[in-house]
């Protein structure tokens, strides 16, 4: 080995040693920083994550607002610019009735809901004078979605700014934990915008679709606000089939309708069957049909209360048929699997009626849900 090579070797060894020292120092420093500032760093990273989602939520909110405005312009042909009115509606708040004295709370809640519905529709009618009844209902739904997106954005922004101001790990943690669910729901709302502007049936309408299939071709009459009923013969039994009036976006008043029929018949009804969409758990199949008992009506609880009340009064059994679907699918365009569930649900209804009632009995079948894109 030459002298030259040896000196090179030594130099390189020295270099390696120095590099090793530097690396050790860096490691030690990093360790200390993480040890002391770990939570602070995590907090900042979480804030960054929330910020990213907030950008997306803002984009979704803006998209909702823009779609609402452009659809109103296109369908309603308003004489003035609808933008300020839409902006005002997006900030709309509902104040729940007081729960401290719960007597009659359902009645009060119902009042508030119907006032809200009336007011919203009235505003839409003002903005879109050229829209027909169906378009009016669909536009109202579009506005509801835009409103929901706006509320979600504002709540997340509130927690983000609050977290940024206080740098409190726990305030930020709260919103960060919920963020995946919030984003999922918001994305569902954005998909709902498309379904509502085009008037496509949504997953929630599966109950209405079942009712529509049963009542097709029969005579219908209006029984409650935006709710139709039709008398259908099933297996020798007389069935009153109820659904919201389509094809505009509408949920009707199924509770009121069931109550009306029961009062009309003075309780001589053998069975009430309610068909509705239900949220599936992760891992369950979309479009799976399950049975149960009770009033399967979602929403704020007014209709559910009415059905339970009147069914208990006349001692009529309540059956539920549920079609399972994902949260994303509830307000976006109906999926193929869910339509396959409709046939199955109809078979189940027939079986339930056949097994639990006699010929000549009267039954009530209510298809619950938003009937957008589904006539009768």
């Amino acid at each position: 080995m030459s002298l030259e090579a040896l000196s090179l070797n030594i130099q390189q060894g020295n270099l390696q040693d120095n590099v090793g020292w530097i690396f050790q120092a860096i490691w030690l420093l990093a360790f200390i920083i993480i040890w002391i500032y770990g939570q602070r760093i995590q907090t900042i990273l979480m804030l960054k994550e929330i910020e990213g989602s907030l950008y997306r939520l803002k984009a979704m909110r803006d998209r909702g607002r823009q779609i609402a405005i452009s659809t109103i312009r296109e369908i309603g042909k308003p004489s003035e610019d609808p933008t300020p009115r839409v902006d005002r509606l997006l900030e709309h708040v509902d104040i729940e009735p007081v729960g401290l004295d719960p007597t009659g709370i359902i009645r009060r809640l119902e009042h508030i809901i119907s006032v809200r519905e009336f007011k919203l529709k009235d505003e839409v009618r003002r903005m879109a004078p050229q829209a027909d009844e169906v378009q009016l209902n669909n536009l109202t739904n579009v506005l509801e979605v835009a409103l929901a997106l706006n509320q979600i954005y504002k709540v997340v922004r509130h927690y983000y700014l609050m977290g940024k101001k206080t740098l409190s790990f726990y305030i930020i943690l709260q919103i960060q934990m919920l963020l995946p669910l919030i984003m999922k729901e918001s994305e569902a709302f954005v998909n709902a915008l498309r379904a509502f502007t085009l008037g496509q049936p949504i997953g929630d309408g599966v109950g209405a679709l079942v009712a529509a299939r049963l009542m097709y071709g029969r005579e219908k009459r209006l029984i409650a606000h935006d709710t139709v009923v039709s008398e259908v013969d099933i297996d020798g039994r007389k069935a009153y089939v109820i659904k919201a009036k389509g094809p505009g976006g509408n949920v009707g008043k199924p509770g009121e309708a069931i109550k009306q029929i029961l009062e009309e018949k003075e309780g001589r009804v053998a069975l009430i069957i309610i068909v509705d969409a239900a949220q599936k758990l992760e891992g369950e199949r979309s479009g799976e049909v399950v049975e149960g008992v009770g009033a399967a009506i979602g929403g704020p609880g007014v209709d559910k209360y009415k059905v339970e009340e009147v069914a208990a009064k006349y001692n009529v059994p309540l059956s539920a048929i549920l079609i399972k679907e994902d949260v994303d699918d509830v307000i976006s365009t109906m999926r193929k699997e869910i339509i396959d569930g409709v046939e199955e649900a109809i078979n189940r209804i027939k079986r339930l009626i056949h097994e639990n009632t006699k010929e000549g009995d009267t039954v009530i079948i209510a298809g619950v849900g938003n009937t957008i894109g589904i006539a009768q």
Partner: protein
Amino acid sequence: MVMIMEGEKETRRTPILLTVVILAMLIMSLIALFIAIRSSLTRRTIEIEADIVNIILSVSALSLSVYLLLQMRRRTMALGLDKTRVVTVIKCASCGYGSTREFEKGDYVLREVGQCPRCNGTLLIHSIFRESKQEGKKEKF
């Protein structure tokens, strides 16, 4: 209306901090790899094991950062909203005739859309649905 159909691109931000960290990691591991290889080539005596360890470490750091970069790219791609086809199924009320077409504005279930070419009965919209994207995906549970 047009805006909804084509306006599916979101305002998307790349996480700058994360990208910078990963890129720094990538460069550092490249340099480390280079140094390790060079020293193992020039040095002909002992301590070859140390060089091998260095090479292994830098290669694994390299692959980790490349993996992270790929992962990030894939995630930003998956963020976009799904574009799906909506289908209208038309069936004859009297005979079994049926056909499908793309959803058109104004379609709704049970809408009458003309006469059956086979039996002159009324054609109805039987169903409207969105085609699922994850078909044939087997779940473990």
